[in-house]
């Protein structure tokens, strides 16, 4: 049987049986391996469903619990600024600077470079008076 079908069959079987009839085998069942296999194959929902089913037997320090956890959302105090001029510049200059990283302020283009690393070096060497909008034109 192809490996993917075997994994899906084992997963489905484990979910159907629930904790009752497999209670004795819960702690030895390779849930972590199966979850990782689901992730490696791009089956995110299968990975999340199996994690939720086996949550009680997953070690609390497992990285899987962190990366498959729902996002944490909270209010931020970071204020935005009006970027109308920057967005207008991007619309007008998109083709001309295609492929470039640009740093924009209200006055227009402050700096540009082929890579983000080079742009950040430029900005550190000559900081703009305000925090720029950095964008990659691709």
């Amino acid at each position, binding site marked *: 049987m192809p490996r993917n079908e075997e994994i899906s069959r084992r997963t489905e079987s484990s979910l159907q049986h629930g904790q009752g009839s497999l209670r004795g085998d819960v702690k030895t069942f390779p849930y972590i391996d199966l979850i990782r296999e689901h992730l*490696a194959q791009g089956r995110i929902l299968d990975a999340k469903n199996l994690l939720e089913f086996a949550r009680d037997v997953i070690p609390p320090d497992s990285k899987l619990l962190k990366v498959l956890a729902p996002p944490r959302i909270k*209010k931020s105090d970071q204020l935005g600024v009006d970027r109308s001029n920057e967005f207008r510049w991007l619309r007008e200059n998109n083709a001309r600077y295609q492929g470039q990283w640009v740093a924009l302020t209200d006055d227009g283009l402050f700096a540009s470079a082929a890579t*983000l*690393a080079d742009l950040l070096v430029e900005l550190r060497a000559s900081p703009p008076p305000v925090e720029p909008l950095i964008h990659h034109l691709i």
Partner: protein
Amino acid sequence: MAQLDSGAAYSMLDVEVAQSLGLLDGDGEPAQVHTRHGIIKGHLERVSLVLIADEGEPLEVETTFLISREWSGRTFLGYTGFLERLRIALDPVVNDFYFGEPE
């Protein structure tokens, strides 16, 4: 800036942004995703970002991104683990994006 993609399974970072954040060589869980560019393999990392608001309250979101050297596109904010947990609305006439906490 990032692109919203409600059809994207994962959120993904521009590879240069990931590199500048020190995430490119992380040891997160291996994962892959099917995209229009083919299968992209990478690893999962927890990333914090701020949705800055032109009006109203900004939100800080900590969520999982797929980090990959194979990704040649821009930063995408996908559905699973990001958009699905926000209250969102789009006004395509003026290209406005509304967002808010789930409750």
